């Protein structure tokens, strides 16, 4: 056993790539390598985040005609696009988590959407409409699982003044939202885009 480990270790150390990586530098100074590594790290990290933030803009999202011709057109008529106070929720505000780890996780999932774009899975209106229920259900499921986090990034129940709401909304929020019985997306579906065929969806008929 011990002999086996020792042999494996010897083989590992004997590998020319490992030998090069583990031996001290022959020409470059320690200061160059330390500072250079630091600068390279800053450049890499900054570039990575800049690229990440660029993919998190409305401009980037509607760069694909699937988004521009379908969901973005539909968003334009809604309260999240134009309203009395002039605040706009853009695509990533609702569809990408704001917190870093979850954002990266969502971005990795989005590689599937790049695949869909390349192979044209919704590149016509008809294809999009045929897929709409599936697409919507994915978003509903995601928002249900994270307790409508993207809604709550702007609309928190703590800062909600029920006396400013009409009685109908106030009582619904009191009974279902504050009690934790439901989350935003359970009732507020289709507020920013048109709905798919809602037959079979709970709360609709």
């Amino acid at each position, binding site marked *: 056993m011990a002999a086996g480990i020792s042999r494996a270790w010897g083989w590992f150390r004997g590998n020319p790539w490992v030998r090069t990586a583990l031996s001290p530098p022959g020409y470059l100074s320690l200061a160059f390598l330390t500072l250079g590594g630091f600068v390279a790290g800053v450049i890499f990290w900054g570039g990575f985040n800049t690229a990440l933030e660029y993919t998190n803009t409305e401009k980037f999202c509607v760069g694909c005609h699937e988004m521009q011709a379908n969901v973005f057109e539909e968003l334009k008529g*809604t*309260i999240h696009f134009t309203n009395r106070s002039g605040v706009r929720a853009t695509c990533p505000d609702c569809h990408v988590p704001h917190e870093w780890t979850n954002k990266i996780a969502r971005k990795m999932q989005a590689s599937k959407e790049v695949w869909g774009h390349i192979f044209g899975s919704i590149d016509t209106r008809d294809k999009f409409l045929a897929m709409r229920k599936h697409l919507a259900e994915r978003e509903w499921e995601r928002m249900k699982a994270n307790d409508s986090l993207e809604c709550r990034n702007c609309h928190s129940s703590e800062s909600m003044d029920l006396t400013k709401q*009409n*009685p*109908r909304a106030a*009582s*619904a929020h009191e*009974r279902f939202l504050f009690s934790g019985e439901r989350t935003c997306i359970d*009732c507020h579906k*289709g*507020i920013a885009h*048109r*709905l*798919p*065929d*809602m037959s079979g969806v709970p*709360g*609709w*008929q």
Partner: protein
Amino acid sequence: MRRSVFLCLVSIVPCLAAGAILAQDAPRLRGPEPFTKEIPAPPMQRQVTDDVRVRRNYPDQPPVIPHSIEGYAMDLNANKCMSCHARKFTDQSQAPMISVTHYQDREGNTLGGLAPRRYVCVSCHVPQTNAKPLVDNVFTDMDALAEPERQPERGRH
């Protein structure tokens, strides 16, 4: 030929004259400005959203909507109104149930749910605004006609 031209004129001139005379009497829904002048649109009216049920003016009147319906889906795929007013959702929403007449098709057969011909709620039920009526409303409540002695407010409405 000349005769028919003459007849034509004879028939057209009174029509034009009548039009001119009647036009002066017609209520000007667009305001006092002449139609050749472009006037700015009046501001949008605020909807009544106080959630208080409004009395019907006659028994068959479709009740008006006392809440905002902005952004409510109403198309082939989805009907947001039914998420509260359908029979099965009235306990959680405390909204009035759609009338039983809405379960009947045009032959009077009772169906299991909302009849397709009643699907588009806003064909009959509409929200109200605080807009000032453009012309006076001289509508009189049926009760005031049938029982004038018990309706002292007659004449005020």
